[in-house]
């Protein structure tokens, strides 16, 4: 399991896969104040990432992986939900 709960902190570590999305969602739904730590994550599956996008927990920033640091965390920590525009008809 690359996702685990440690007190109030959800740790995502190593290669997070599609099956990590469900427990992550469960823990966040149960307590929205939980913090997600991405420091040791090496990759986030899109399913995991979209849970974070939807629920917007506090994120413990920094981390080893440049892609996560550079492109994913800014999306999750952006001030307002930055939904992409819906396509016009």
């Amino acid at each position, binding site marked *: 399991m690359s996702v685990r709960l440690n007190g109030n902190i959800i740790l995502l570590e190593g290669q997070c896969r599609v099956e990590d999305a469900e427990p992550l*969602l469960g823990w966040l739904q149960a307590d929205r104040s939980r913090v997600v730590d991405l420091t040791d994550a090496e990759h986030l599956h*899109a399913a995991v990432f*979209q849970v974070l996008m939807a629920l917007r927990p506090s994120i413990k920033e920094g981390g080893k992986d440049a892609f996560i640091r550079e492109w*994913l965390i800014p999306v999750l920590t952006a001030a307002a939900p930055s939904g992409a*525009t819906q396509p*016009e008809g």
Partner: protein
Amino acid sequence: MDDLLQHFIVEARELVQQATDSLLALERESTIVAHLDSAFRAVHTLKGSVGLFDFAPMALALHAAEDLLGALKGAEARIDNDAIDILLECISQAERWVGAIEQTGQLPRDAGEEGYRLARALRSQLDEGSAQAAPIVPEADVGWINDLLSAGFDRIDLRAHNTGLIAIRYTPRADCFFAGDDPLALLRSVPDLVAVRMGNREPLPLAAEIDPFSCNLRIEALSCAGFDAVKTVFRFVPDQVAIHEVARRDTADPHGDGPHGSPVRDTSAVGATGSRTLRVDATRIDRLADLVGEMVVAKNSLAHLATSSGEGTDRNDLVQGILASQAVIERLVADMHRTVMDVRMMPMRDIFRRFPRAVRDTAGQLGKLIDFAMEGEDVEADKSVVEGLFEPLLHVLRNAIAHGAEPENIRLEAGKPTGTRIVLRARREGDRVIVEVSDDGRGVDPASIRQVALERGVAPRDRIERMSDAEAMELIFVPGFSTASEITDLSGRGVGMDAVRSAVERLGGQVGVQSVLGRGTTIRFSLPLTIVMTKVMAVRVGGETYGIPIDGVLETAFVPASRILPIQEAEAFVLRDRTLPLVRLANLLGILGNADPGRGSKVLIMSVGGERVGVAVDGFAERMDVLMRPMSGILAGTPGVMGTTLLGDGSVLMILDIPELIG
């Protein structure tokens, strides 16, 4: 090119024209709502048709133009020159893009950057003009590229990559996780990312109702890797991804010039091949259909005659019947021919309407005040003649603005109105169309023409000195008269008046100039109404028969050997007290003539480049109207041959281009 795209091109041209006309009218009469409505409708429709194709940058720019026009309509922005300028710029660019699409089927590489720039400029007008906060403008389907570019702007500048940008919009299918896809793994493998935006494909459900296994992402990214490198990443999900090329200015413009400094080829101008689409007034087609109906009746009566001939009808009756039938068919064929020719006729308006904007732009760039007017837009000529006139007329108009129009203070001193009047006029004269560009500017000084002609050696000194002023004026059409130093950005592209002349001569026309110093200049084109039927004179040389267009033949003469004077290598002869050069057609063609020069020569007196020349042939044959076919395929470049025509006996007549053979 597929049909849809072809229709798009025809329609787009019309809409561009409508928008341009309306904007120019709006500039003159900014209070008339109809102009604004018309411009808005044109741009709106054009944007809609662009949306049917993958021309995102064009849609982006037009969308912004539509919004600006919408704001002008709603009085949220002010109609001023800046707004009109940027709208016209956008429309001109759209027109160039249509030209590019017609030629290559796609937008040029720099279109992304240019579309983005135009959209920005248009939207800045919108912000400027509106006092209240600009309304949030719904972005078109391509707005995301715009947003991404602004999101990745710093990074784009930081990385001095020399490649274009690739915009990616990846919308994974909801069930993609079950197929084993990980959209973020794909995104991770896109090389050289410069911007990423994430969103949701569908609005988020309540937190409790989230299905973690249904993908609800929309990923947008910019990369400065190559198009192919990016495409490879998404090769297994082509249905879920849109990849666009967004070229950057430094790549789009290798000379480092700004968009204005770079020599922009006017792709809207009709090239030599031109479009093969012809719009025809429905009544002309109806007329043609009627004629075909009559033709069927005539055929039936002929069939009746054929049957009755086998039944021992009286011979005289039969002859009468055939003669009557032949007369009817002859009339019908003539009518049909005329009607088909009419189908090819188009009014000058179709090209004239593009000139007001060109004149406005040129005048603006040169800071000249021009009072431009057009007459005779309804005059019709063959499609190829009308379309072929665009480039030369544009050049002449630009010349009139650049060289004809004097500075305002000089005009005032001379008692002229401040604005230089330039009139473009078309009229019909017999079976020819006359098109003139007149200005009331500074006029041409024959003395300085002579001076320049001498300096540039376009003709020998003694000839230049013998010329009348009117003849000297014609020197402006001689190759080499206008030099590179005079080629400005405007009259530029290395086209001189000699190119104007050759373009007009290709259409079977002639050019002339009249000018009064201080009073103005008129450049006149005289063109055939149609170049489909050509009157030719057949001549015999060395046992062969050739055709020569009769337009260029002034007269025929028999010149006795005693009147032919050898001058060094060449020959000349005296005709009515003037000495004319004599060339022998056999020599020009490199064949052996049959005629014996000792008994005198049969000579065609022709006008070649404004000069009289005698062309000796073995004999004259008949004159005829022929349907000339231009040389095509591997023969297209044959020098000295204009085209061919089939004669009644099935043989082929080559029609010679004498000026080219001599030149």
